[in-house]
């Protein structure tokens, strides 16, 4: 039972972390290697919120706003010239990640920071005590997933984004302002990444390089998922589950690379990952 809960909650956390990256990759076909830095920005938003003595839950909207605004600037200045050079975009965003990491270090110092818990304690699930916060993560993942589905299916922006995904040339010819769709998508993606950073704070230590550890896992999941949130959810459940199993029964060290290795193998067998299934 415990194992099952661990598997589901791990999948939920992976989903939260990867969602922002997927939003950007799905529409823009650009891999935002500064994703880890945005997670860090989000986490430090939580630190700053706590420092100001505000309610820790306020960190969520603050982080989303900060992440989105910084993301908007990034799209305009750095990403926009590189849409035709996707490999260079990986490098430029990685460089940006270094810059952000250093700026955070200069501002907050390189020590590990702590924030007040958003939710503490355990609840009884079928007779076992389980961390309330990890269960909350599942709810948060569901909310993010559903919000995205609504955004894509139910709004004008979502419709335009889908058009851009399918055929950008045609979308532009039909009068969709693709540049604006891209800007909005990038801002939502980075906002989400920062939000995920806040949600991570009770689970990991906060330091200027915390994002890098999460980057590769989410990157691999997104490669497998393609551009759909439902396939991302499946990928998170499958690979997150596998990660928990390997950590429990083999070794935690190998658990840490399970997601990356399994995703690489899946991509070798089926280059489009789960997208076709």
């Amino acid at each position, binding site marked *: 039972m415990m194992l099952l809960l661990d598997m589901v909650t791990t999948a939920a956390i992976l989903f939260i972390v990867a969602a922002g990256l997927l939003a950007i990759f799905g529409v823009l076909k650009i891999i935002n290697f500064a994703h880890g830095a945005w997670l860090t920005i989000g986490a430090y938003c939580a630190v700053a919120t706590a420092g100001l003595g505000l309610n820790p839950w306020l960190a969520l909207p603050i982080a989303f706003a900060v992440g989105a605004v910084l993301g908007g600037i990034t799209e305009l200045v750095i990403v926009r010239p590189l849409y035709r050079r996707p*490999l260079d975009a990986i*490098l*430029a965003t990685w460089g940006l990640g*270094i810059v952000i990491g250093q700026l955070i270090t200069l501002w907050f110092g390189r020590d590990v920071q702590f924030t007040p818990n958003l939710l503490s304690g355990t609840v009884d699930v079928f007779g076992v005590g389980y961390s309330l916060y990890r269960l909350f993560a599942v709810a948060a993942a569901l909310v993010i997933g559903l919000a995205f589905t609504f955004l894509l299916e139910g709004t004008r922006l979502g419709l335009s984004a889908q058009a851009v995904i399918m055929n950008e040339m045609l979308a532009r010819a039909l009068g969709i302002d693709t540049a604006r769709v891209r800007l909005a998508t990038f801002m939502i993606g980075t906002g989400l990444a920062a939000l995920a950073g806040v949600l991570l704070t009770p689970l990991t230590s906060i330091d200027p390089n915390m994002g890098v550890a999460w980057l590769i896992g989410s990157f691999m999941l997104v490669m497998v998922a393609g551009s759909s949130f439902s396939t991302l959810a499946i990928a998170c459940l499958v690979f997150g589950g596998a990660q928990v199993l390997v950590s429990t029964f083999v070794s935690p060290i190998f658990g840490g690379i399970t997601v*990356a290795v399994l995703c*690489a193998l899946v991509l070798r067998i089926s280059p489009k990952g789960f997208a076709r299934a």
Partner: protein
Amino acid sequence: MLESRSTPPRVWLFAALALATAVVVIIGPTLFDRFTLNVLTRSMIYAMLAVTVDILWGYTGILTFGQAAFFGTGAYASAMVLSHLGASPALMVLALALAIIVPVLLGAFVGWLSFGHGSTPLYATVISLVVPIVVTQLVFSGGVWTGSSSGLVGYSGLPLGLPGYFRLTGICLIVTTLVALVFTRSDAGKLLVAIRDNEARCAYLGLDPQRLKIVLTTILAGVAGVAGFLYANASGVVAPENTGFVFGTEIVIWTALGGRGTIIGPVMGAIGIDYLSAQLSGDLPFLWNLVVGSLFVVMIILLPNGLAQLARMVLPRRNGEQASQPGCPTLTAEPAGNGSQPGNRVLAVSGLGKSFGSLQVLQGIDLDVHPGELVSLVGPNGAGKTTLLRCLSDGTEATTGTVTIAGQDISGMTPDEIVALGVGRKFQVASVFDSLTVADCLRMARASRKAPSLLRRSAMLGLPAAAADILRSTGLDRMLGRPVSLLSHGQKQSLELAMVVALEPKLILLDEPTAGLTKVERTTIGATLQKLTGELGFAAILVEHDLDFVRNISTRIVVLHQGKLVLDGSVDQVVNSEVVRTIYSGGAHA
């Protein structure tokens, strides 16, 4: 931009540079203090890695973070031998051998994983991220064998002392750099650029780009392993960070800042940045990384070819655009290969079908082509003409039926294997290598027959007479040294045709070779095709919309309509048939 012909001044320049560097390396220990010597030794080892990344990424277009893993494996293999077994001369040899063999094996595996038939460039990058992470985790879980998170330290290495290590790494770096320079400027080195420019064209010239990339990855993994061996000895410590993906990104950053695709640039970039980092990071620890990071971002956006590009813009160009001067090869005739026997079928297609899901694009196609025939394939848009050509040149395409070329069933064969059977394919949009010169493009077409030199840039360009004729009739023979990017649309089409003919195929597939050409260019291509088939015994299948053109040059016309072959006959039969008139006037359209 990346081209520089190895005219004599260049050779002397390299030699002088190498000599000057060698002098610095030899007398260095008497000039620098201990700290500088230590740092520069490390920087020069890193520079060797930057050279390998440059060959993979700058020349071949494979963005890789994986060199760190091969470097780390080499370093750990050496350090583990030296720590656990000892440092006797025999064991030192074992350490070096393992530092090469283990990364080479890993490299071969990674190459096989990264470069399957049809894998994307992004996938190779993905794998190159995963490999260092896996290696790092293996190091962490290695217990006393790898020293886990604290690494291995306190073993004895080569008895050289600081000056000795400095000289050894310096010499290794010079050798690596020179070999890389000679190789990338050789005929074989142009292959890398060709793969980067246009992998599909490489495959359709009978080359196997995926296998070449695997070989390249394997060899360069070995070079990174040697660098790892030097590092393990010179620094006396190996740590998990040496194998990690963050280190892998650093090597890419040095390469990018120095100038990808120049070899010298990345060497300078690695040494300069690593040395400055060591000097400055004491005073400005975080600021320095901030500066490097910002510089890197700006560079990628504005100056993708790095500082070398800047240097090239500032320095006056020495051998400018002297298109057909010394570097330009002379055309020589190659003896014609064995032509196909007249009478035997070159191509036999029976019951060929192709469907995408439930959509049937081609069905029940039967077609025979004999040497000397010029068969035109006509039909309205969407009739399946290009799909048919694809099925003939890639054995993995057809869904049903058989295609036999020169007596051999091609099902399951990759394009390069089919080229070896004697099929040349010319694409609709001219598919050539934009960063190469005309002569280099043509040389690529011969590379599958005669392995290009790894060392030299040949002054000759041997071509079969038929290909040379095309060059002469289109004036391309006077532009052999010109970069392809400067050619006109029509010249590129002619160049591609010459490349395909230079393969000496038995069967040429042409997809609208005259699209977008002027009247004069059309006539030239038409005459060339007639000569190739009528006089030289090639067989050709031509997809074409221009019925007048088709009528003038074809020996036979085949009409495709909605995926079926509706007519196969002589020019007169087809042109005067009722069916064709109906199809083209739209009557038969659903």
